[in-house]
């Protein structure tokens, strides 16, 4: 019940903010540094996917890394 209320409150917030006009506090012309290659989250996606696979097959924790999929290769 508590989870349902929380979901509803979050949905309401998303709906309200999704329809509203929020003024960006960082203007497009102020994003020069953010566009620099040093600020890319994941420059080598193929490499990040592999190191995540290595960790997930040897540790119990998984998820929260933005990747999906399975396979084992874990003996």
């Amino acid at each position, binding site marked *: 019940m508590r*989870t*349902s209320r*929380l*979901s*509803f409150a*979050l*949905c309401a917030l*998303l*709906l309200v*903010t*999704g*329809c509203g006009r*929020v*003024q*960006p*506090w*960082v203007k*497009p012309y*102020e*994003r020069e*540094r*953010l566009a*620099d*290659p*040093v*600020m890319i*989250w994941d*420059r*080598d*996606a*193929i*490499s990040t996917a*592999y*190191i995540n696979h*290595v*960790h997930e*097959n*040897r*540790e*119990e*924790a*998984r*998820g*929260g*890394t*933005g990747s*999906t*999929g*399975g*396979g*084992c*290769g*874990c*003996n």
Partner: protein
Amino acid sequence: MTGAAPLTRLLGCALLALGAAAHGDVLPDERADVSWRMYQGGGITVQGPSMLVRTNFSDDISVTAGFLVDQVTGASIDMIVLGASPLHEVRKQKNLGVDYLYGKTTYSVGIESSIENDYDDSTLSASIAQNMFGDLTTVTLTASRGWDIITRVIDAEGDKQPGFRKRSDRTTWALGVSQILTRNMIGGFDYEAITEQGYLQNPYRAYRYLAAPGSAIYLTAPEIFPGTRTSNAIAMRLKDYLPWRASLTGKYRYYFDTWDVRAHTAELDYTQPLFKDSVMADITYRYYRQNSASFYSDLFQYANEFNYMARDRELASQINNTMGVAFSYDFVKTQHWFVKKASASLHYDYIMYRYLDFRDATQRQYPAGLEPFYRYNASVIQAVLSGWF
């Protein structure tokens, strides 16, 4: 499965919100990556090539395709303890994805298949990503479903155990938010819930128990796992642009599941351009800590002591440290024939696995339960060639 209904409602409401506004945006860059990578540690070597290509068919449709091969050789501590033959197996994975861009919304679907001689996995996924608030925020919702088939190889020729064919399936819900915070800082939040049911254990693993009360000798028996698991991961990340043109990234993830495993992952990355920007250097440190699962024990007192019994080291308490370094060199910087840019990168990660309640049972000179705790180090090397078109 108890968390699935609220999550479904949340996804439905969020989709309504995401569809509220749409303007113009662009698809990701067209690029191709080819890599060769190797993992070596704990008696096992895994190596092979991989490839990932993204191409755009129009201003609003982009397709990705990839494949990889893992050649696995060697014998891990679990295999040595049980006297199993060294491994010589191959895993092949293929994936295909389509992105459709409509205004500021990207709809994606993907399929992935991974095949080994004793483990087949198929995964379907769908996601929706929305840029909003003047492109300050990107919200991504992902749902995926996976189906695994597990068999058991019984000899070096690859023959399978007759009648042994198990299934498990997996449902994943993920919410990701990427946010511009200031002119110098971006942040991210990820939540992922995974529910699994079916055969969730490794068919080759065994638990060990004392041959008799007070005995120094142990015997082994096949593990017994629960048939369901629900896991949750909550992650946050921040990336800051430093005054001398470099960046510092901090990440933290908290994980918990219905097998009573709790895990903390913290990571720090530093990125620095070198040699007039032709080389990009990355240094990474990762800390990982988990406690053991509720039905895990290194040594049980007798056979069938509990309903569920496991001795998988993946379920044991452990503290792992990873140090990584990567260099990326741009060898084509301007348009050359059809290539806009090309780079070569080399990644090296050194991982130290330290188990806190998993003992090295190969050390037969010690009485059962008094062996030193198992520990090993692993190296991961990746060489990547990337081209943008």
